[in-house]
């Protein structure tokens, strides 16, 4: 897709997050090279979403910094580089699926997005509902809409939080294929999930427990269930 940048796709240095006395994330140092497929594992409350939100610029660190290809997370340049699928779909009540796509693409100044949008809608089974309001969709269809919005615009880093919740098997398969396609195109893909079968296919696995990294390595070298037990 694009030549590999000199900077890593994601870099977190001495990153922490606390809510009063509650430590959500211990000091974290993490470097994700461009093009890597990384899976974040950990039980509920382990700090996965906290890290992802700080990388997406939605949460300010208590200390430390996250960079996206050398740009500080949350900056305008970082927002152009990073695409994020939240764990809970966040969509406007008063825009149709197609209007969401158009609004997103035009804000990101994309060109020739119509064909890509049509293909994504087709693959995720939303073509016939493109003119409808997602506010009236089921949880799974809203999740699919959220996925389309993340994938329809150009990005260097894709961060996905619990992507498979609410998806039917064909939707799950389609999304896995689309993430694979993005990685083959040179994008970095970071996925937080509890799905161990998906984690086993990643290049690298980082497991968190109580806000601290307890494993960082290839998924094949560890008993994966032990990481979320």
């Amino acid at each position: 897709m694009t030549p590999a940048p000199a900077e890593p796709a994601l870099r977190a240095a001495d990153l922490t997050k606390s809510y009063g006395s509650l430590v959500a994330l211990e000091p974290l140092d993490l470097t994700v090279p461009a093009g890597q497929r990384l899976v974040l594992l950990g039980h509920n409350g382990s700090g996965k979403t906290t890290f992802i939100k700080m990388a997406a610029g939605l949460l300010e660190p208590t200390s430390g910094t996250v960079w996206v290809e050398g740009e500080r997370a949350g900056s305008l340049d970082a927002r152009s580089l990073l695409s994020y699928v939240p764990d809970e779909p966040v969509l406007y009540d008063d825009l149709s699926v197609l209007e969401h796509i158009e609004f997103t693409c035009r804000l990101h100044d994309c060109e020739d997005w119509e064909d890509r949008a049509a293909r994504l809608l087709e693959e995720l089974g939303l073509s016939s509902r493109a003119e409808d309001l997602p506010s009236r969709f089921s949880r799974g269809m809203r999740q699919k809409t959220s996925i389309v919005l993340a994938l329809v615009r150009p990005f260097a880093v894709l961060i996905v939080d619990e992507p498979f919740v609410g998806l039917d098997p064909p939707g799950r398969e389609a999304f896995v294929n689309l993430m694979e396609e993005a990685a083959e195109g040179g994008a970095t893909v970071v996925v937080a999930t509890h799905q161990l079968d998906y984690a086993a296919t990643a290049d690298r696995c980082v497991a968190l427990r109580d806000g601290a990294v307890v494993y960082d390595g290839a998924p094949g070298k560890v008993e994966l269930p032990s990481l979320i037990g």
Partner: protein
Amino acid sequence: MSEVDVMEALYHAYVAAIVGGLALWWIALRVGGHEVARASVHSALVHGPEMVGLAIAAALAIGLRSGGRGGPLVVEAPDVRLVLLSPLDRGVALRGPALRLLRFGAAWGAGAGAVVGVLASRRLGGHWPVWGVSGALVGALVVDAALGAAMVVSGLRLRRQMAGALALVALAWSGVDLALARATSPMSLLGQAAFWPLRWSPSGLGGVAFAVLAVVLGVVLAGGTSVEASERRASLAGQLRFAVTLRDLRSVILLRRQLAQESPRERPWLGAHRSPRHRSGRRFVLWRRGWQGLLRFPLTRLVRLVLLGAAAGAAGVGTWRGTTPLVLAAGLALYVAGLDVIEPVAESVDRPTLLDAYPLERGSVLVGLLAAPAAAMLAVGIVGAATAVAIAGGGTKALAVAAVLVIPASMAGLAGATVSTVQGPPALFSDSDLLLPPEAVGAKVAIRTLWPPLVATAGMLPLLAARSTPALPASSAVSATIPVLLLVGGVAIWARHREAIHRAFKEAMGGAGTKA
């Protein structure tokens, strides 16, 4: 559920008496305005009952529509599961909540009616205590008749369309009465009762009987209310109370819309099937997104905007004619209209996950999104101006003042709504509040709450300026427009740079936290 707590009832009456009494006292002392000429009193007697009847029909229509959606009763969620699903007669179970609601409605209706009555006494003459008592009686009957009608509709489980049709019949009947200057509808008859301090008309008793009948039927039929509607309302009403407690106006608006089942249209009024192909780039994207939201407004919201514009215009005429406090009513009507048209901005403020993912500063997105609501708000302002000119009976002077007022009044209404929407709900625990004494925190909360409606009301200042110089009203209004537009511009600049200001402040304080 069905028990009537006498002490609680007395407490409500006590609170209502204090609030109503204070309001009466304040208004009686403060209201400017002089008694109108005898001809005007005659005109009020000829058209007044039918005009009041139309307002009563509007209240009744609101009640009927609420009934069509399962209102107006709100039962606690555990009561729905444990009591309404038990073998207990639902009529008995719901009688208590129905009576409580009617008592509450009567207390507030009486308070509002008494205030209006005292206001009327200042303009139409007569003894203000008599007007006050008469207004309180009619106010209580109107609110309870509307609640009773709603209970009848929900108790009989009439469909929403049927409830809407009944509401239209009530409005049309009262409209015809007004056009023909004849009181034939129960609403117009009740309107006659409102004028008893000026002229006793026995037919007004017919209106009173109608209201009492609606209340009695409502209580008797309330047991038929659907459990599905009760459960939905129980959940939403609980959240609504919580949002009110937190002074979270945006959540209150959203929950109220859910209670009223007021959702965006599935298809926009215009441009449903236009292909987005060949439209790219950021030019006009925020303008277009704003219109996409506005064009999905449901019919009820559009009608409400027209009515709010008309109400602002009518209140403006009242202000012009000497009832100065009506300037607040005009400002509030425009503020509420602003809160409706600002929906595309509010949708973005509600979703920081989306807003902060765009490669544009949050402030520039919000200000860009204000363009379409500003155009819509101008339309509301034009409705208000047209209404004012119609009520004032035309004339160059009225036309000129109304035309000057359109921009400042409508833009200030939007500016007030912008402040409210962009500032969001007050933080439960703010670091800066810890440094302030409790009195200062209280003042801060009061200013935060009152500032948006005050900004909206400031848009009516050109009207007061025009009134104070009868020889050259339009030029005075134009002069007074300048500070209003400066205020509106200041709000836009604040919305654009608010994040940067907060960030700089936070960095200066050395803090960190979530993005607001």
